[in-house]
């Protein structure tokens, strides 16, 4: 976690990229739905290979922030960079230009996203779900996509479920297919939006195990979660958000053991 000063975007990118450019860099990002300001000047950065957990009460803006990163939501203010590239816009001089839908799609394919409700395509089998985007977005040869898809499903422990439709998979299995589907696009960043919140308690572990394995393989991950155990064990950094602002950031173990802020304390006392 490096705190970003409110300098102009160009200079701050240059400053941070001097060493290793961060995978995600948010500079005073704000977002409102109508008059409801959901994100208020969020500034944070995620280094390559870092696993960051975003925690906070519901309505604190964590999911919205995640969705801004792959441009599912359009940012109202500030700048958001993924791997040094401005999300959703191109900048020429002082003017921002909205990206063409195709360019935006190209940005998104570099970012994997896993949803709370899995959002698997129900009319496709597990394997078909995984190979869909590689074949139709990346234009990979079918044989290659299938081989890679099988490998990924194998990796998430679903070797014997490749031909199953999502309706015949448990929630945990569906979420693991969803992770494999996102990984099939070879993303440089993975976003998890409360990946275990819709799961039965006994199925949470199998999904967290897959995510842990992914973290250990060096994937950059931003995880919105209520699983404090996962945050403590796997995450490199923890960000506590409330009311659209970052309240506290730091090393998970320290924050969880010794929260500095009253709101963090209050929240942790409820979830721990």
């Amino acid at each position, binding site marked *: 976690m490096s705190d970003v000063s409110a300098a102009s975007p160009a200079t701050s990118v240059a400053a941070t990229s001097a060493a290793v450019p961060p995978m995600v860099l948010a500079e005073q990002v704000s977002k409102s739905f109508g008059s409801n300001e959901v994100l208020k000047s969020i500034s944070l950065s995620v280094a390559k290979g870092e696993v960051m957990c975003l925690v906070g009460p519901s309505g604190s803006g964590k999911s919205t922030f995640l969705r801004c990163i792959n441009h*599912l939501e359009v940012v109202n203010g500030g700048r958001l960079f993924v791997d040094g590239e401005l999300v959703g816009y191109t900048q020429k001089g002082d003017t921002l230009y909205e990206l063409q839908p195709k360019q935006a799609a190209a940005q998104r394919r570099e970012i994997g996203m896993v949803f709370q409700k899995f959002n698997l*395509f129900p009319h496709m089998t597990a394997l078909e779900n995984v190979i869909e985007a590689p074949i139709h977005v990346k234009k990979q040869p079918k044989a290659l996509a299938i081989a890679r898809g*099988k490998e990924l499903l194998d990796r998430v422990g679903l070797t014997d479920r490749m031909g199953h439709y999502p309706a015949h998979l448990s929630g945990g299995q569906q979420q693991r297919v969803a992770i494999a589907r996102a990984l099939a696009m070879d993303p440089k960043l993975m976003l998890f939006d409360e990946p275990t919140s819709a799961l039965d308690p006994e199925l949470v572990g199998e999904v967290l195990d897959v995510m842990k394995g992914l973290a250990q393989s060096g994937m950059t991950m931003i995880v919105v979660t209520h699983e404090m155990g996962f945050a403590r064990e796997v995450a490199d950094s923890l960000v506590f958000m409330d009311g659209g602002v970052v309240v506290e950031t730091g090393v998970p173990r320290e924050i969880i053991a010794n929260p500095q802020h009253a709101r963090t304390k209050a929240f942790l006392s409820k979830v721990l």
Partner: protein
Amino acid sequence: MTDSRPQAKPLATGSSPSLEASASSGPIRAVKLKHPWRNVIAVVIIIFAVLFVLDASQRTAYDWPSVGKYIFDRRVSEAALNTLQLTVYSMIIAVTLGIILAVMRLSPNPVFKSVAWFYLWVFRGTPVYVQLVFWGLLAIIYQSIDIGIPFMQPWASFQTTAALNTFTLAVIGLALNEAAYMAEIVRAGLMAVDRGQEEAATALGMTWFQTMQRVVIPQSMRVIIPPTGNEVISMLKTTSLVTAVPYSFDLYTRTRDISAETFNPIPMLLVASIWYLFFTSILMVGQYFLEKRFARGVGDRKPEKSEKVSLATGVLSTVPDSTGALPLPIADKNGGDSR
């Protein structure tokens, strides 16, 4: 890997509190609930039906010999074929146009939205009969059809009457009217697909068009097909209005023309009805198979079927397929399914 079959455990624990059941622990043997009134009502209905049929078979007004004579009359069977062609062609155009209009209405583009809305307003807001009369008068309103740049010498020019015969005009008239209704059916289907599906596809980097084509439309088919089957059957019968164009070689107009010669309308009505019923029956069978095809992954798909596919991965290589047939290799299965 835990193969979780959620129903297994709760069932076992759920039955244990009942001491009676756990004591015998075998399958329950109980006297089945009787429905005596069902049988009584069924018998009464059957009696009435038999009486009606017996009566109808002897009534001279139905003139069954004439029905038998005309049912396979060349003029009638040709007219039946014409009706079928009118239905099929106009439905194909209507479904295609309906999908386009529905997608336009739901697109973020305000121009597309307005055009689709205007189309619906006009074609849904006027009777199909009136529209057919209008199409019949097309040649009077526009004597020639010019292709080219406006206010310039056209590249090509056709006489309307020569370019469009009454059959074509009938198809156009029926199709354009039906497209307005299909658009609403398709729109309902598209909106029935969970928003998360679109989001997941977008997050994977699919374009809006790919998302529609690969993810949203295939799923909406399940919702779209039953009312569309309804529309096809409705269209089959609406073709009897093409006499307004005037196109007179469809089933109803043709049989009526014949009865105008024979002064015996009732058997000809029966002939027409039998043909219409025959076609609708076939269409219903077709609808059944289409619904099954698009119910993939939802509803009552048999689990054994997917089990069979998983066998192909070579992991669960324990039980051979009961039919003795080799399970489909997974790659082939995908090849067959993804188109």
